[in-house]
């Protein structure tokens, strides 16, 4: 059996021994794993001791109370995040300090367990966290084996590719079996939906092709002096038919006629993604303003729309692969969830950065800053 080392940091001996008792005979088994996972428990009463143990022993999971006699749990969390980020920290907090717990999770704690907890609650939290550790270990192993397989990425990718196939197959089957009798209109709707899903799949494949193009090192041999405004203009023209349909106006301001040394393909991908997002997530009659500005030795590409905007939560996840904003307003907008992660990757490649500023209901502004 594989054993995970769990350190319980709490100044109440009762809690420590309780946790030990619950976890000592507890094992987690997964359908996709041969061996079960058990837990070795280490009990400490103060934050100072906890840090000593982190320095001297291998620890997988820390169950951390915040109210400790010396330094606080949050300080221990800070230390672990800085020095041993591979350790997963779960905060133990009373319901009264749930706010603190949420803050702690934002500051790097993996999760929190509200106190008082039942044995079952503790167990299911541990189940969760060990599943996460297992998946992480698996990903690391695959990377180490040189396969460069990104487990999570591939599984999500195949999910995204298969979902439309399932949907289309389902509709075809319904139509073949004439489930709706002579109701031709309902079949038309199914055909429309199928066409939509095929479109979505095509977009995903195109984005994947973009992704493979830039997945590698920056190839400076493809670098040339490019006129940013020209590439932006081409992107705008490509997007215009769709923009006209939505009654969205796209403007470009490039007063300095900026020239940049870069791979034109990369820059095109940046404009295409930002401008098409600006149009797609816009309101009818809205605008997308593209602005190119030079400051110090940097170039700012600003794309500002008057669309549906993003919440803080959505902004945080925006550049993650396959993240898509899901709401009533975005339901009928197709997208692969890859576009912005690709833009981010390109700007990283050029040692640049990407920023987003958004107000829900009013619009979003993306700024890509590239060094010259």
């Amino acid at each position, binding site marked *: 059996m594989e054993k995970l080392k769990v350190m319980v940091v709490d100044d109440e001996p009762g809690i420590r021994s309780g946790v030990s008792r619950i976890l000592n005979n507890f094992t*987690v*088994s*997964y*359908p*996709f794993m041969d061996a*079960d996972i058990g837990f070795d428990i280490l009990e400490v009463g103060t934050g100072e001791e906890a840090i000593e143990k982190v320095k001297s022993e291998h620890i997988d999971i820390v169950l951390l109370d915040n109210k400790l006699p010396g330094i606080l749990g949050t300080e221990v969390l800070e230390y672990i995040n800085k020095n041993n980020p591979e350790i997963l920290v779960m905060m133990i907090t009373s319901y009264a300090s749930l706010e603190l717990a949420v803050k702690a999770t934002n500051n790097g704690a993996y999760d929190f367990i509200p106190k008082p907890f039942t044995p079952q609650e503790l167990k*299911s939290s541990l*189940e969760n966290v060990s*599943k996460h550790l297992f998946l992480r270990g698996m990903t690391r192993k695959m990377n180490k084996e040189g396969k460069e397989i990104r*487990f*999570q990425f*591939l*599984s*999500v990718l*195949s*999910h995204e590719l*298969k*979902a439309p196939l*399932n*949907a289309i*197959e*389902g*509709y075809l*089957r*319904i139509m073949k*079996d004439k*489930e709706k009798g002579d109701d031709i209109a309902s079949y038309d709707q199914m055909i429309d*939906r199928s066409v939509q*899903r095929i479109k979505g799949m095509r977009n995903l494949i195109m984005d994947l092709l973009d992704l493979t193009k830039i997945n590698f090192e920056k190839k400076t041999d493809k670098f040339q002096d490019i006129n940013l405004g020209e590439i932006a203009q081409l992107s705008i023209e490509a997007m215009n038919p769709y923009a006209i349909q939505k009654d969205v106006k796209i403007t470009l301001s490039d007063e300095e006629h900026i020239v940049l040394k870069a791979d034109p393909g990369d820059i095109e991908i940046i404009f295409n993604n930002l401008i098409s997002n600006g149009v797609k997530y816009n309101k009818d009659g809205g605008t997308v303003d593209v602005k190119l500005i030079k400051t110090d030795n940097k170039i700012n590409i600003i794309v500002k729309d008057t669309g549906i905007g993003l919440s803080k939560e959505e902004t945080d996840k925006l550049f993650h692969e396959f993240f898509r904003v*899901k709401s009533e307003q975005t*339901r009928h907008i197709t997208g692969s969830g890859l576009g912005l992660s690709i833009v981010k990757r390109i700007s990283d490649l050029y040692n640049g950065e990407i920023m987003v500023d958004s107000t829900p209901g009013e619009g979003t502004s993306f700024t890509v800053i590239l060094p010259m």
Partner: protein
Amino acid sequence: MENTKRTVLIADDDEDYLFQMKMYVESFGFNVITADNQKEAEVIIQNTKPDLAIFDLMMENDDSGFILCYKMKRRHPEVPIILATAVASETGISFGVDTDSDKKWIKADLYLEKGIRKDQLHKEINKLLKI
């Protein structure tokens, strides 16, 4: 016997798949409640007790389906659950609820690969509801 119709809760974030499942399950003579995300399904579980539930695995979280199974069984242990997903063929990892250790972890009564045929779905639902 219209008022004794049983109710099936279906949660899936793919609107087309949800539509198709709803259509099939309704054609078997059940009432259907739908949720297109995990959060919504959790609210439904808190407030109503369906006779059977069908959950998708990957919704806003990769393990949404597992979480819903867990929450449903905690609130209504007797309600049978079907976990419908395409994950196995995607990851090469096979899930299943056949062995005891699987049952301990996956709190679903039946695990189904997506793309199930209508008659098969009907049979499985009837079996779980002992109809």
